[in-house]
């Protein structure tokens, strides 16, 4: 595999997404709507339950929900929509690497979602002043690895969604909230404070967002450094690699199946 065409493909796909997001400022307003209101509502719930010091959990949750929403609606569903628009078959016919397209899409998605996430965080901090005790290097590394594993999961889902037709949107709607709950986006779903039994915690730990949220809370609010969260970081890095490989493999398998069955260009079924 040549590296230059691969990098150019990735850059091209990332730029399309970045331009589309920043060329239309309304996108930022659109993206931040639900995360802002849900984090404010849940922070007020923490406060009314008598635990103002945990309002930061709700705000961090709002930030990560912005990215999780982007993964579901702009990564997982994207190839399905591209197929309906007739773009996916052009991807396949071109010599461009599909993995490069997926990674470019992820980078563009992360950069495009960042302003909404920053606004959610800023607004939350201004309104609630949650106590923060961050270990900065560990926090930055945890955040980067959480996003990489989360978007790798989006890439895997995008290939799986190709196998579905219009059911993909219903699946997305069904997945968004349960995954947020199991991953502990707004409350710890693993560890001492979790309400779930061990078996559920174990199952939830298979979702990269669960490991990432737990490590983010520990580094941001409890000043735990790399010496404490390194197992989580190793797990996140391993999940990123496995999911990336799974995405590439399943896309190839689906492409081959589509060619054999003649369904590669079937747009709506």
């Amino acid at each position: 595999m040549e590296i230059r065409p691969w990098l150019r493909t990735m850059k091209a796909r990332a730029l399309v997404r970045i331009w589309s997001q920043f060329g239309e400022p309304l996108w930022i307003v659109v993206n931040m709507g639900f995360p802002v209101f849900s984090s404010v509502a849940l922070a007020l719930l923490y406060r009314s339950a008598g635990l103002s010091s945990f309002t930061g959990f709700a705000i961090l949750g709002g930030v990560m929900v912005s990215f999780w929403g982007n993964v579901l609606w702009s990564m997982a569903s994207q190839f399905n929509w591209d197929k309906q628009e007739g773009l996916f078959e052009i991807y396949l016919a071109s010599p461009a690497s599909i993995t490069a397209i997926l990674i470019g899409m992820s980078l563009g998605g992360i950069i495009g979602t960042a302003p909404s996430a920053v606004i959610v965080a800023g607004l939350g901090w201004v309104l609630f002043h949650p106590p923060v005790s961050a270990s900065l290097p560990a926090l930055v590394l945890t955040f980067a690895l959480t996003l990489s594993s989360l978007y790798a999961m989006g890439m895997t889902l995008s290939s799986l969604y190709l196998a579905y037709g219009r059911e993909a949107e219903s699946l997305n709607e069904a997945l968004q909230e349960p995954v947020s709950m199991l991953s502990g986006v707004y409350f710890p779903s693993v560890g001492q404070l979790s309400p779930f039994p061990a078996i559920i915690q174990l199952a939830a730990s298979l979702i990269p967002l669960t490991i990432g949220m737990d490590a983010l809370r520990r580094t941001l609010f409890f000043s735990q450094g790399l010496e404490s969260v390194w197992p989580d970081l190793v797990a996140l890095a391993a999940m990123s690699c496995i999911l990336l490989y799974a995405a590439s493999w399943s896309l190839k398998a689906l492409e081959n199946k589509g060619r054999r069955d003649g369904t590669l260009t079937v747009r709506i079924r």
Partner: protein
Amino acid sequence: MSSVRSVVAAVWVGLYHDIAWTTPVAGLAVRTVAPLASVMTASIIYWLGSTVSGSFDPYRLAYVLVGATLYAHVAAYAWVPTVAIAEGKNLAVFPHIYIAPRSSSVYLAGRTLAAFLVSTTTSVIALASSFFVLGYLFGTSIPLRVSPESCAMLAAALVTNVPASLGLGYVLGAYSLYASKFEWALPSYVAGLLMVFSGALFPPSTLPWPLSSASAALPFTQFIDAARQALIYGSASAFLVSLSYSTAGGAVFLAVGLLLYRASERRARRDGVIDRRLA
């Protein structure tokens, strides 16, 4: 009479759209998991916060449980007119509805009623499931009153809230007729606003004035309060007061929504924007 037939036909279309894309059981299950997860998230946050701060109160847990279920219920069907218009434009269905002799508001009412039926079913399943699951997880008994009287009161509250939700739907629909981008994002804003301002998770008095007064005056807040009176506190007089406020507010919402929508529809016909898909 033909308006009733049109509404019934639209209800049928809505039911097919919402759950008949797969088997009815799978369709309902897919629509139930999201409210169930949402209700459990809010309840777990209350449990965590109150347990750590040492102020846990089972009645307050029931308050959050009922509020979270009903906010999700309203959010699930109030935005149907927006989606019906946006999706209808995109799939070229809406122009056909639009040129029919009836106002498209009849079609939207039918679609909303279909979503109300589906959402009522999924909300009741979500409430019952979370009642048992959370009771087991937290090792506590959640004080919900379940009797023929309380169920009848809840049913009355649910039905009373339909005009308010339909009115909100018409207001959003009036905008959607003209919008051809990002109108699909409105539902998430509506859901988020309801989460904060409908008293679903915490008393409206928690909010700073004048937001607290505005929140308390919303028909959705009164509807959720009436449902809480039915399922938790059992006060018939407080129930009737909330129900009356909810009914009156719903009538105002519906009248304003319908007026706005009809005006927007007339203008949209004149301006020829019904099949405009891109801005």
